């Protein structure tokens, strides 16, 4: 038995879920008022025409038949009914099948404009929180379809309410007892179907992890990026074993819930049959005792059925709103998220010194610090190489510098000013950055290089940047030059670049951006030695007066640096020029010698 408290709690939740749904409806009304109004109108029109055709006009028809009026007068009723029927259909077809579809696009456009802006403002740390991340992906992927589904479900409820109400009134005029009987049974069966729905939802939740498993297996066995691995080892055997597990799991869940669902289903059918039998016996009795006419009997029979279906649909729809409410809540949380990395107020000066002051950083949820009391200072124009073992915290350092994260302790300062005090966007624009895991976007080469909307006056800039990143040779082979679309996402003639070529595009971004500071995380990992050499030369010559910070595992490239920062386990362990560090004969020297051995042997 549920306690009162629980009941109240669940009532509170339902109220909250309704409020969330109302919020979504508000969103729809905001982005596409016509979608909202016309859909509601659709609901009313189908309700009214449905009520007219199936209850009112049928009653009139039966009455007239009974009275024995002329054929013309009965035919008129039928023609009017057909006309009403047609009008209702015409609205819902032209609106529902056509206009509504493009209004939905308008809704999608409007909602996504704000959603995308919000998504771009999310802190990177949100991606580290799997729960938030999943909700966020869910919110952004389903926003418009959910919103329009909510409005649609309101429409359906409205139609059914009007329809049921009309049937109810009709029944009242024939015999109030039937109203009571059918209401009681409708109530019972709608309770049963509510229970059924709840149980099915639980079943779905229980099946979900198993489905995720088999979906993963299906993906790993079909996606091209896995194709090589699945052909060379015996991974498919392992994957298939997982698949079988998932099927077994699903079977168990189905059996477990199946029994209960079976009982509920039978109860439902039983209540339905009972009500039908009782009503028919009662109506037959009334008919034989002469209390109602044959026409009345037929109309009542019809109305009982309509009422029954109407209630059924309302109950089914109602459970959908609980789901909608859940979604709406996530959506609201996402919209209400306040980024923790916020812009400061101070204008960004020319960066003369860049100082890390006792910076400590720990990823949210991590067990240990990724960076531990890092202090150093970089002057304008300095070329700094960051080296160290895998997992030493080098990339994290870059992320802090660009304010993708803020330090857990300590501060990063520009000319003595904490970077958190500076305006965020202008601060980030001071940097041109290439990441290790850079991305190529499905747009033209020019847009990928400019990393913004491309206009033709930027042509020279793009071409020069590509020249510097040693992409020119490849560019010459492309028919459409810098207007060539990359990837086949939008264009079947799109070009898929190799890893090294893509990296050159990413590097060209830095040259085109022309910021004060260049940051490169493993800029040459996929480049052949010649391209790497040329790249180093261009960086040196292009960036003479610029500050350059780069991470590299190829220590030969670190020699062009004025200064080398050697990291191990989140700590800065050595700091100095190549010569100094070689003289120091510490970890850097060891690492360098190891790599140089094969070249100098």
């Amino acid at each position: 038995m549920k306690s009162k408290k629980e009941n109240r709690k669940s009532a509170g939740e339902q109220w909250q879920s309704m409020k969330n749904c109302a919020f979504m409806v508000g969103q729809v009304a905001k982005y596409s008022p016509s979608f909202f109004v016309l859909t509601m109108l659709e609901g009313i029109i189908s309700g009214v025409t449905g009520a007219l055709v199936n209850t009112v006009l049928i009653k009139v028809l039966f009455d007239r038949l009974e009275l024995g009026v002329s054929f013309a007068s009965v035919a008129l009723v039928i023609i009017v009914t057909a006309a009403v029927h047609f009008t209702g259909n015409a609205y819902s077809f032209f609106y529902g099948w056509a206009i509504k579809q493009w209004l939905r696009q308008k809704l999608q456009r409007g909602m996504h404009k704000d959603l995308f802006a919000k998504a771009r403002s999310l802190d990177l740390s949100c991606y580290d929180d799997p729960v938030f991340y999943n909700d966020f992906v869910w919110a952004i992927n389903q926003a418009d379809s959910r919103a329009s589904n909510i409005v649609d479900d309101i429409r359906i409820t409205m139609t059914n309410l009007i329809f049921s109400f009309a049937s109810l009134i009709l029944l009242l005029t024939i015999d109030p007892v039937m109203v009571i009987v059918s209401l009681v049974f409708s109530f019972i069966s709608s309770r049963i179907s509510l229970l059924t729905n709840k149980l099915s939802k639980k079943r779905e939740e229980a099946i979900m992890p198993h489905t995720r498993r088999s979906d993963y297996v299906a993906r790993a066995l079909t996606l091209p990026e896995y194709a090589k691995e699945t052909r060379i080892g015996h991974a498919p055997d392992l994957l298939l074993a997982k698949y079988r597990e998932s099927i077994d799991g699903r079977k168990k869940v189905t059996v477990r819930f199946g029994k209960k669902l079976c009982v509920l289903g039978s109860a439902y059918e039983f209540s339905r049959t009972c009500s039908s039998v009782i009503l028919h016996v009662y109506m037959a009795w009334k008919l034989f005792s002469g209390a109602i006419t044959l026409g009345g009997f037929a109309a009542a029979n019809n109305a009982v059925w309509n009422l029954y279906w109407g209630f059924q649909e309302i109950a089914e729809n109602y459970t959908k709103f609980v789901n909608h409410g859940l979604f709406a809540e996530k959506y609201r949380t996402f919209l209400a998220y306040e980024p923790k990395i916020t812009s400061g107020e101070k204008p960004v000066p020319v960066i003369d010194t860049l100082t890390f002051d006792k910076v400590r950083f720990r990823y949210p949820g991590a067990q240990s610090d990724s960076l531990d009391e890092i202090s150093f200072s970089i002057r304008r124009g300095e070329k700094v190489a960051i080296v160290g073992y895998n997992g030493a915290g080098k990339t994290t350092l870059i992320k802090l510098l660009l304010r993708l994260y803020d330090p857990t302790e300590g501060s990063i300062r520009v000319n003595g000013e904490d970077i958190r005090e500076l305006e965020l966007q202008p601060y980030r624009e001071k940097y041109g950055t290439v990441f290790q895991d850079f991305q190529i976007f499905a747009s033209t080469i020019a847009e990928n290089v400019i990393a913004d909307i491309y206009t033709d006056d930027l042509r020279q800039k793009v071409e020069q940047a590509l020249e510097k990143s040693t992409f020119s040779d490849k560019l010459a082979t492309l028919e459409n030059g810098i207007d060539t679309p990359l990837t086949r996402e939008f264009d079947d003639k799109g070009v898929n670049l190799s890893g090294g070529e893509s990296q050159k595009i990413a590097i060209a971004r830095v040259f085109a951006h022309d910021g004060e500071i260049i940051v490169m995380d493993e800029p040459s990992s996929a480049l052949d030695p010649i391209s790497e050499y040329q790249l180093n030369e261009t960086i040196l010559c292009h960036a003479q007066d610029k500050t350059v910070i780069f991470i590299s595992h190829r220590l030969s490239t670190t020699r062009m640096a004025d200064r080398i920062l050697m990291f191990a386990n989140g700590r800065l362990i050595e700091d100095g020029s190549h010569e100094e560090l070689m003289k120091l004969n510490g970890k850097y020297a060891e690492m360098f010698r190891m790599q140089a051995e094969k070249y100098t042997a």
Partner: protein
Amino acid sequence: MEMAVLDRQRDYTRRTFYLSDYAKEMRLSSIGNVMMQRFHRTIGMIEAFMKKKLPFHAFLRLMMISIRNILCYHGASLYAVFRTIVSGTIRYGDCLVIIDTISRLSYFMSNIGDTAAEFQGHSLYVNNLRAFLEYQPKIADGPLPAPEACADLEFHDVHFRYDGQEKETIRGVNLRIRAGEKIALVGLNGAGKTTLAKLMLRFYDPTDGVITYGGNDVRSYEVEGKNGYRERISVVFQDFKLFAMSVADNILLRERQKGDDTLIAEAMQHSGIAEKVQTLPEKENTLLTREFDENGTVLSGGEGQKIAIARTFAKDAQLVILDEPSSALDPIAEYKMYENMMQVCEGKSVVFISHRLSSATLADTIYFLENGQVIEQGTHQALMAQNGKYAEMFRIQARNYVQEKGEME
């Protein structure tokens, strides 16, 4: 354009806004504006498509439904009424029953109609399914079991062109990897190195020329299974993938058997991942990726690469192919990995592809590729003496290291 294509494109732009892969660029540059523009353009195209097609669709449907439901239903009612009132051939009660039944009848009829239409869709799907099931792989089994001992692998004037491309990627390559030989494939980006590796693995067959293993055309061997040709090869790809399985399963890539524990431990030791695995909550049984487990471990690029490398140590293969196996490794890890590889692969053939030419010096023979052709081949010393493209490339990379030595002396 088809709706499905537009939908796919819209989904792509949407992904760039929420996937973590794109998150950094989205925040640090204005590429988001471009994606936003694409999104609006795609939605615009969807809208235009709908405005063009849908009104007519709606009209057709309305007519269909009107004829089926309205005309049939109300027409039948009218007819029943006519027979009752005018011709008097049916009774009043029957008329009511007819009107009542016909409404249900029309409902069921329309249901049947809708369902029948769905079968068209099913049939389309079944067509695809059958085409897929009946597909005969072009890389087919030959009659022979692949030799168990390490054997010579030879390319005889091999040409290869990818489907749908005009230019050949491989243009007449001859090379011979003797049993137990270590060879390096070097060259500029796009020279065809990875394609050669794919041909060795029989992921593709040459468009012209022959590849032999142990003297027989590789096409004459079984492909997979115990006696399969691919069973003899182990490989690390540039774009390796880890599976959402335990570390041990990821390394073995097969069912675990008794005695595999030492194999796994050794493989982890050799690839340099053992230390890291010790720190994981369930050691080598820790689940990788967050696919199934919120607490699954996500490895860094370098760590993932070490797992992929451990696979080759755990598989008893005669030919080992390493395609840029160390791109994400730090110098110490790289150095140790190569040391171990050379030691473990005693007696096995090894092919490595690397831009770090220091590793090429380990090879017995180096093949320098350019535009799909071998333009230089020989030992490191021979190629350096030849003073060609390889020597130039090597000197450029070695310059900074060599300078160092000069200074030190």
